[in-house]
């Protein structure tokens, strides 16, 4: 059965304190891994898609990396506006259109 596990569940950082969020997955034949950001009461906002091990993508203070078993979202020198829940998702095995989501990491960045 496909599984996507995100850790930690919650993370509290001070402004400027860099850290990483983890997304580990078990799926047959990875066909992409998606990262989203979700603010409270809003829909997920697309951040990155990664397709192959070793791939990296960056956007402002965020960098996503991918290995054969997991992905990391590195946050460098975060600011309070980076506070959100970060979700990762992978296409489900055997079907091209369904995504299996993790339950997210809730990030809080304080001054």
């Amino acid at each position: 059965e496909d599984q996507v596990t995100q850790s930690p569940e919650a993370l509290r950082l001070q402004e400027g304190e860099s850290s990483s969020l983890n997304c580990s997955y078990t799926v047959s034949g990875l066909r992409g891994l998606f990262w989203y950001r979700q603010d409270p009461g809003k829909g997920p906002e697309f951040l990155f898609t990664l397709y192959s091990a070793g791939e990296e993508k960056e956007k402002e203070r965020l960098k996503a990396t991918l290995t054969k078993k997991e992905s990391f979202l590195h946050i460098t020198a975060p600011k309070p506006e980076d506070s959100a829940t970060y979700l990762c998702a992978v296409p489900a095995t055997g079907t091209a259109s369904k995504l299996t989501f993790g339950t997210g990491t809730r990030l809080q960045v304080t001054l």
Partner: protein
Amino acid sequence: DVKVTQSSRYLVKRTGEKVFLECVQDMDHENMFWYRQDPGLGLRLIYFSYDVKMKEKGDIPEGYSVSREKKERFSLILESASTSQTSMYLCASSLLVQETQYFGPGTRLLVL
């Protein structure tokens, strides 16, 4: 920019009512999706549609139906709302299968 809009941000309904949630996307995407999101359970797929009038069940279709009469519009119908359907409902669309899904702002539904 992709824009996915949902008809309501908040909705309060009574048990047994028929409820319609509408979603519209403006990017000519082929695929549209309905999810519900609950604390601790993450996003779960209810239904998706890969073409006009075509639909497939997701992981939790019981108690729901969908309609896609036009490419840009995908409706979720709760035939007889129950308190267990109180949730955040999210619509998404994607250009092609396996491509990035773009989400709407969500509808928070409360069934009393």
